[in-house]
């Protein structure tokens, strides 16, 4: 679609002609919703296009840049605090995803990147002490119903999300990269041997492991909200860190941990959508893990929709089918069949409730909140 192509061209710095203001309004809207406005702003500046843009665009890019900057500073503060609190309690303390992108020294993927929570990876056996320590310092779990509690405790790869009482910081503490019940959760020790420390002493994954984690996360999701942002995360990591060692480490780790297919798919859509060059030998190495042609066509249908700079106001035909198939696939991949039935049944029941009574019927606090 026209607007989608314009956005991709902007990200790649390959804009052929002047863009009408009406299109810019759509572009700003889509990128803001994709949480990608600051990132594209940074790219445009790097291409030297920043000052040539209409005032309207410069205004919104600057807003986004300032908001991202604020988050960048905030995460440095939170990381310092978390490190000092938790370091003594666990052998491994890693910052993942968005926070890691910000903390990694001079990482392009961290520029203008915003996120709603800070993700940590720690040793499973140290979770009780970590939870207690965080609680003592103002991080509390949100009110969960019994079903959700059970989900987190028994089947998940993280404890229920924590929120800081006054600062509002959201914290996700993980002990693995994928829920245990999926049967796909890797031996986390394999990942622990691919880490690095930044100049301030924070531990994050090596670029290759960071990329693989990001790819796993994206390619196994049952719901993709910011597909284009997530796709560009991968693009930026590869663009900045690729060299023969990177590709070697990446493919070896992917095969060793059982995520070669996810890596193959992540690279495929970066090639297809963002024209990312991938070395021939990498493609060859991953070839045996390629899904069959029917499966591949299905996956292409889903991801060529979901990884585009999507927005409901610019929906194309097939978008909602892609959503549905993605949901089905995500659940199918992540849950044993009996559990999937149970889980979907439960979610369907909740959906029926909210369709019938309105979306706030499931919100325990809705009434109190309105009276406040």
């Amino acid at each position, binding site marked *: 679609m026209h607007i989608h192509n314009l956005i991709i061209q902007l990200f790649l710095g390959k804009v052929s002609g002047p863009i009408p203001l*009406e299109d810019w309004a759509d572009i700003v*809207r889509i990128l803001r919703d994709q949480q990608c406005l600051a990132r594209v702003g940074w790219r445009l500046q790097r291409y030297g296009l920043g000052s040539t843009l209409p005032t309207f665009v410069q205004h919104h890019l*600057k807003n986004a840049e*300032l*908001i991202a900057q*604020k988050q960048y500073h905030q995460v440095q503060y939170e990381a310092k605090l978390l490190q000092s609190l938790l370091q003594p309690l666990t052998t491994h303390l890693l910052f993942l995803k968005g926070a890691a992108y910000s903390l990694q020294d001079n990482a392009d993927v961290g520029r203008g990147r915003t996120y709603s929570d800070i993700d940590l990876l720690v040793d499973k056996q140290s979770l009780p002490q970590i939870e207690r320590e965080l609680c003592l310092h103002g991080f509390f779990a949100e009110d969960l119903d019994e079903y959700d509690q059970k989900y987190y405790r028994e089947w998940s790869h993280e404890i229920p999300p924590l929120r800081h009482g006054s600062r509002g910081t959201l914290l996700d503490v993980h002990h693995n990269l994928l829920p245990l019940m999926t049967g796909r959760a890797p031996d986390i020790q394999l990942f622990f041997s691919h880490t690095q420390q930044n100049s301030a002493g924070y531990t994050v994954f090596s670029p290759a492991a960071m990329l693989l984690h990001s790819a796993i996360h994206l390619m196994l999701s049952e719901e993709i909200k910011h597909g284009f942002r997530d796709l560009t995360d991968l693009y930026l990591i590869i663009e900045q860190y690729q060299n023969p060692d990177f590709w070697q480490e990446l493919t070896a780790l992917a095969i060793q941990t059982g995520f070669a297919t996810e890596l193959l798919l992540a690279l495929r859509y970066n090639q297809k959508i963002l024209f990312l060059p991938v070395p021939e030998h990498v493609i060859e190495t991953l070839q045996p893990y390629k899904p069959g042609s029917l499966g591949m066509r299905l996956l292409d249908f889903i991801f060529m929709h979901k990884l585009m700079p999507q927005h409901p106001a610019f929906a194309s035909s097939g978008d909602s089918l892609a959503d549905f198939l993605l949901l089905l696939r995500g659940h199918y991949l992540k849950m044993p069949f009996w559990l999937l039935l149970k889980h979907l049944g439960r979610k369907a029941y909740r959906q029926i409730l909210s369709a019938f009574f309105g979306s*706030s019927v499931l*919100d325990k606090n*809705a009434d109190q909140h309105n009276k406040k």
Partner: protein
Amino acid sequence: MTFDVRYLHLAPFCFEIRTDINKVATNLQQIYGDLFSTTPGIPDYYLTLRSGSGLRKYLRPQARFLADQQEPFKPIDINNGFALLEWGMNWCIATSEMRFVIVHAAVLAKDGKAVLFPAPPGSGKSTLTAWLAFNGWRLLSDEMALVIPGTNQVIPFVRPICLKNQSIDLARNWFPQARFSTVAKNTHKGDVVHLSPPAQSWQQNTEPAKVVAIVFPKYQKAQPLEVTALNQAQAFMALAENAFNFSLAGSEGFHTIVQLVENCQNYEVTYADVAELAEFLEQDVLPYAHP
């Protein structure tokens, strides 16, 4: 369900508005007049005010506010939809507009000289704002002062004045000809009515003004006017408390607040009679200010 697309041209921003709630649309017309129209603009924000889904349409119907795909607030009684939209617009500006230092304050100007009135709810700020706006002052802002960083300049963001509880009847008696919205009952602020400022404020809604004084008003029943000059440290602390995006704007925000305080007369004023306060401003503050 069909949503009419309208545009709200509120300098310096343009909002695209979609609503399926009649009462919201009529209030928009009542308050904003021609500024709420089908004349397309380049929207900065995309707002939807829609009625709830499912049984909610019939049983205690609700209004939901959406800023594009985001829903920052809980649904509210459908009759209060317009107030929800007003707060939603404030939310958009406060969370997105980082190129201004935004102070939770009313701004009114006379003879090109502006006074900033930062105040917590309950201080009578909106009543004061309404009175001044209808007595020769120009309204630039009722709730959010948009200060250009590094200057004393305030950009107008003219919006209706948000009156609460007792001040509603007071304003209706004072200005029977003025344009009021319908009452939003039992909101988290109590009963709320929005009042459209006079034509002059709307007509000059792109003309910035220089702030010459910062006045922290405090309504106290049956008290004579009491004026306390604040030193710069006191004024800074009081003003910083009311700055929305103080931390976001970072050092630029800090310096802007410092510079404002340094270049302004700063007062705390306890008053019972708004006319008396206006007289003080017009005779003892503005004439000595050089913008």
